[in-house]
């Protein structure tokens, strides 16, 4: 999130789209309720079905799964066509006034931007997706926003196709509702008002998921909603610590702190550093962060003379994809993988095309699962339909503690790092994961201690001198946290923050964005529990530590006008007091840079142009401006351009081979969660009090479809897609819809994906149905929109 949970109380309008916040993030509703009580805030729910969130919303608008981008495109058009944008804000704080190179274009006939190579299914030439520069290399601008090649005018033309009527046709939304949503949300473009967008996997798990997220950033920039209380683009993350896991780079393409993963194209540290964004982007400090990271990992073995042991880092093959989709495809095709450690995951239930992925697991020689329960992944060899006699995988199940039985930090969606203490000991011999990791690393290091093979050096030299967690888990975690925070290696003292990190090897730091969480002066700030709230905005700076630098709202320089004065008294948050930036939060800006300095009016400090990129310069694989494409399995044609699907979506080797069409699979389907279960259900389906609340897997279907197919409420049905089948109980409800899409009626259904064959309550795995294709940029699977058929189970 750019903002944080408590901040929802400051909003005037909350747009909940692609999230079922009331059910899946109940705490958000306590703050939304406060916004409603105290500010008269309005809540909008946009969702394919009427959910518990919709039930508590002021305005509900249904859209069919897979059409977020059309919905947002319509909103962008509405803003631009009706002058709902915040003119001064976008002229100064975004690249709307920048002029784009001649030659850049988008052709609705082909559905492509310039630079696409059909053979490689990729935009191989992105040179025109760039600014026009003057002789000194400065970006050419037109602050009046009138130049025909200004980003503003390009966007205006691009989105003019997204009329309310066209969007309604594609989304299957009632025109009047759509208009009401646009009108209400864009009212937050007025000075003194703020609107928040709340989203979750209902935005991201699509072949155009990244572009959906970009839409939200564009809208919030146009409305001037970034960087101020009650605004922002707010991802409600799906686990208590999934923010922490991405921060620490439990992802295939990153190192901790969102630094890129080295590839074979960057064989030396110099080559790696050459990819650093140029100054004045704050990212230009990256060489300091990578040097400090390498010092944290390799200690004495990392020094300026050997590139800080950069060689030890594994290099991804340039151009090769290592995502979940690719990994399981490789495994399925007997490539690359022999063994697998599964921590805090249950891919047999959570992965797409579960039939294929669980079959793939059979090709492993060994599998180590760490979980409090024997979940579907560790029990894959006895899943329905499998023959244990034919499966040679050796499976190790290491029982681990649950969240109440371990200690350490979790980082929630608001980037807030909070220490949690253990409530009770786990049963028997269970251990927390970090203990197991410690023992694993020590065992590996012992095995390689005598080796002088160069490829083993990365294990031999890995620093691992933490106190033994068997004696004290607390001391072990303390040492790890100090290393993550970073130290001055000559004094041995903790650094006060990432500003102190150096490129010369004199500091170490395990994750630059977490630097400052543990300081000499303030101790372990993640343990701090001070409730003070200066300004009353709910920032609570003394409660835990929010990265970066304890900022609660990022881009908060935007809460003041270009001259440093608050845009309005009502939303006074950060301002220039003549000598420094002051207010109720840590400035996301150089603290003493005056507004009249050359960069003093440029709040987006991570970017080279220090502006919000409503036009994404060269960055994304599927275009610099979001454009609607249909989900890979869709019941209709794309009306916005002549290309049906995202031109660069991730197909992998097998994904595209098992797709179905609307003739055979006429219903739109999506998967979703319920409040009562937790992810793959490994915990909640083993917990009687939760299991009783939702004892069976169910599919929500509309009354019309139920009538057509003669399905009664509470009867068992079977869903079938091109990948597989799943049975579930039918919940016939007027809350599920039939959509009129491009003149044709199409039913939408959807089911929970919390079920599997293990636990106190069991059910078919919903992901038997989902396709093995993913987003063009992240390869996140398209879990949320695909085609199925349904039949009543009579036998």
């Amino acid at each position, binding site marked *: 999130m750019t903002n944080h949970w408590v901040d929802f109380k400051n909003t005037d309008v909350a747009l909940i789209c692609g999230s079922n916040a009331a059910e899946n993030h109940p705490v958000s509703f306590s703050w939304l309720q406060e916004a409603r009580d105290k500010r008269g805030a309005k809540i909008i729910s946009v969702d394919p079905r009427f959910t518990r969130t919709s039930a*508590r919303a002021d305005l509900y608008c249904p859209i069919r799964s897979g059409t977020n981008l059309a919905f947002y495109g319509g909103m962008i058009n509405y803003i631009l066509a009706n002058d709902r944008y915040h003119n001064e804000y976008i002229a100064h704080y975004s690249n709307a006034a920048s002029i784009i190179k001649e030659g850049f274009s988008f052709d609705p006939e082909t559905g492509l931007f310039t630079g696409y190579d059909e053979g490689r299914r990729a935009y191989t030439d992105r040179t025109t997706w760039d600014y026009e520069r003057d002789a000194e290399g400065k970006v050419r601008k037109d602050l009046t926003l009138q130049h025909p090649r200004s980003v503003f005018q390009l966007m205006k033309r691009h989105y003019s196709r997204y009329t309310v009527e066209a969007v309604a046709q594609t989304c299957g939304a009632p025109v009047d509702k759509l208009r009401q949503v646009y009108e209400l949300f864009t009212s937050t473009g007025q000075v003194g008002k703020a609107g928040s967008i709340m989203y979750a996997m209902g935005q991201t798990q699509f072949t155009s998921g990244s572009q959906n997220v970009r839409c939200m950033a564009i809208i919030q920039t146009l409305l001037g909603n970034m960087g101020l209380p009650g605004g922002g683009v707010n991802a409600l993350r799906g686990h208590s610590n999934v923010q922490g896991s991405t921060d620490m780079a439990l992802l295939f393409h990153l190192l901790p702190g969102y630094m890129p993963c080295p590839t074979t194209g960057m064989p030396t540290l110099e080559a790696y550093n050459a990819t650093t964004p140029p100054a004045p982007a704050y990212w230009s400090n990256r060489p300091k962060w990578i040097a400090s990271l390498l010092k944290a990992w390799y200690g004495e073995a990392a020094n300026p003379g050997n590139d800080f042991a950069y060689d030890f880092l594994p290099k991804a093959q340039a151009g090769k994809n290592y995502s979940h989709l690719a990994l399981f495809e490789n495994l399925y095709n007997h490539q690359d993988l022999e063994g697998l450690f599964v921590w805090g995951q249950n891919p047999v239930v959570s992965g797409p095309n579960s039939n294929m992925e669980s079959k793939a697991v059979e090709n492993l020689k060994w599998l180590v699962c760490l979980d409090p329960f024997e979940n579907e992944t560790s029990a894959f060899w006895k899943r329905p339909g499998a023959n244990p006699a034919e499966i040679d995988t050796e499976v190790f199940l290491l029982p681990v503690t649950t969240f109440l039985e371990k200690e350490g930090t979790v980082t929630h969606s608001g980037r807030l790092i909070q220490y949690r203490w253990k409530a009770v000991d786990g049963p028997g011999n269970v251990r927390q994961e970090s203990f197991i990791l410690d023992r694993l690393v020590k065992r590996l290091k012992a095995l390689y201690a005598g080796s002088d093979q160069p490829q083993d050096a990365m294990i031999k030299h890995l620093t691992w001198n933490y106190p033994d967690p068997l004696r004290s888990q607390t001391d072990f975690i303390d040492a790890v946290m100090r290393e993550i925070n970073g130290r001055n290696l000559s004094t041995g003292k903790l650094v006060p923050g990432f500003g102190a990190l150096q490129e010369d090897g004199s500091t170490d730091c395990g994750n630059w964005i977490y630097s400052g969480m543990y300081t000499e002066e303030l101790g372990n700030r993640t343990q701090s529990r001070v409730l003070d709230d200066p300004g009353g905005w709910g920032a609570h700076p003394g409660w835990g530590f929010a990265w970066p630098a304890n900022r609660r709202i990022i881009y908060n320089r935007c809460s003041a006008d270009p001259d440093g004065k608050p845009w309005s008294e009502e939303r006074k948050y950060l301002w220039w007091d003549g000598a420094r930036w002051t207010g109720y939060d840590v400035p996301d800006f150089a603290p003493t840079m005056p507004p009249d300095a050359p960069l003093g009016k440029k709040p987006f400090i991570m970017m080279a142009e220090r502006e919000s990129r409503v036009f994404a310069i060269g960055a994304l694989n599927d275009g610099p401006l979001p454009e609607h494409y249909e989900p890979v399995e869709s019941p209709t044609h794309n009306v916005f351009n002549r290309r049906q699907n995202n031109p660069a979506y991730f197909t992998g080797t097998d994904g595209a081979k098992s797709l179905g069409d609307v003739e055979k699979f006429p219903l739109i389907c999506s998967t979703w969660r319920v409040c009562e279960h937790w992810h793959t259900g490994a915990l909640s389906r083993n917990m009687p009090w939760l299991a009783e*609340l939702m004892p069976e897997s169910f599919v929500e279907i509309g009354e019309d479809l139920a009538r057509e197919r003669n399905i009664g409420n509470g009867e068992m049905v079977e869903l079938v897609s091109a990948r597989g089948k799943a049975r579930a109980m039918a919940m016939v409800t*007027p809350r599920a819809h039939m959509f009129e899409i491009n003149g044709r009626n199409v039913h939408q259904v959807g089911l929970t994906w919390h079920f599997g064959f293990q636990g106190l309550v069991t059910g078919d795995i919903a992901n038997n149905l989902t396709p093995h294709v993913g987003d063009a940029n992240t390869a996140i699977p398209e879990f949320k929109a695909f085609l199925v058929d349904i039949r009543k189970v009579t036998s």
Partner: protein
Amino acid sequence: MSRMARLIDITRCTACRGCQVSCKRWNQLAGEIGAFTGSYQSHDDLSPGRWTMIKFYEEKKPGGEMAWHFRKATCMHCADAGCLKACPNEALVREENGTIRRIEENCIGCGHCVQFCPFDIPKVDEVAQKMKKCTFCYDRISNGREPACAKTCVPRAIVYGTWDEMAALADERLAQAQKLYPDSRIYGRDELGGLGVIYILPDTPAKYGLPEDPSLPFTLGLWKDVVHPFGKGLIGASLAATGLAFIISRRNAMKLKESAKLEEGGYDDEQQKNG
């Protein structure tokens, strides 16, 4: 101690069912895994081991707009409590803080209270021969803590305080609620001498399974005022003649009803009455 109460504001409940779990956790009641009910609602009704639950009410309005509301069902701890009046064995008492408390030793599981509760709250555990219902977390509230269900409620749909405070808060909440649901109203403040649960309802009580105008039957008054005043020692003859006979026959009828239920698969499997 003053009379205590819960305000249950349906217009804020998001049906997270934290209260349902929290009640079981505090009172250490076993999970009761039943079959799919055809709705989000977990079971058809309360049971001896389920003292509170969220009931789901789905409604398609004439204009096509949807409404979906969630009512936490629980003992109301009525000022004028039918259960207490009906109990022949002094197993129910009114505490100073308003709790209608059951005395374990005295309860014979006769189920007479079931008959006379206007809200269908008490449930008889046939094996233990005891009636069970929400205790108002008497153990917590008499030690200065709020009920477990109120504590867990994230959007503050359940609020706990003195009856007077809750009665006043109801006006404030009603004003808020009416902005979103114009037909909202207060329920329980005036009913039956003031209930220990004051609801903010988005619409008419009947839509959420509540009697519009709850009252106690005339016969209950008779039982209480005519039969009971003789006192326990003197009750013999007249009780044998009227009350006891009634209780026994009632109990036998109940037994039949309960065992029929068990044969069908028990409370948990009662299906689909809810929408």
